[in-house]
């Protein structure tokens, strides 16, 4: 039973790092998409004003 804790720990590390990597990408992607939309709106407003 003692050894199974180590087995669980090894697989937990794998899943934790995989999810952390995916989550980091997803959060940054969401932020960048929001920024792109905002910049595009500003650019259109600027073009209309000029």
């Amino acid at each position, binding site marked *: 039973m003692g*050894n*199974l804790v*180590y*087995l669980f*720990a*090894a*697989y937990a*590390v*794998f899943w934790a*790092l*995989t999810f952390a*990597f*995916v989550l980091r*990408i997803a959060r*940054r*992607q969401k932020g*960048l*998409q929001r*920024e*792109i939309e905002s*910049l*595009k709106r*500003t*650019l259109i407003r*600027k073009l209309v004003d000029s």
Partner: protein
Amino acid sequence: MNAKNHRLSDFLTWASAIAMIVALYLVFVYAPTERTMGDMQRIFYFHVSTAWVGFFAFFVTLVASIAYLWKGTRRWDIVALSSVEVGVTFMTMAIISGSIWAKVAWNVWWTWDPRLTTSTILWLIYVSYLMLRNAIDEEGRRARFAAVHGIVGFVSVPITFMAIRWWRTIHPVILESEGFSLATPMLITLLFCIATFTLLYFTLLVYRVRLEQLTDEVEQLKHKLGR
């Protein structure tokens, strides 16, 4: 993201998820229990696969870095950077899972064995690649320095792979000159896990490349707005 890229990333995501479920079935149900180490040996399948993806990712960085220095296109720089990020993540998994295995097999969390030492150096080389990129502001210079780092740094990959053959070590050798020293069900499980992790690598690479392209898009829009 255009429709073709969207379809590719969707396909890779679903293929990786399904392959991972099958891999887990093979590891915990299909593969027999090893006589000496018992169930603990099941760490081996993910440990070897994560190390393989680390090596493969750094090889992709080598190719992309050469292509960048040759062609000078940003696309190759993005692939090199993205591959290092995925590679470092998987090498971290390999080192941590190796350390956990060492605790059970050798009764120590860490020992300065040639394989463990060269793996740590390899990991540090690619972490320093990421640190180097953060330290340089000018885009072209950053990409050139990183490409050279990506090429020179790859020298550590064959050294790490061969460490258990060149020097005296307590780390087991799985792939020998006569082939794999494993029972057939264990070999099938290992090969399937390696294929699954390679698929997962490409999935994460596609998403990471897309992220860098979005960053470039933001910079271009800011430039247009004069910011």
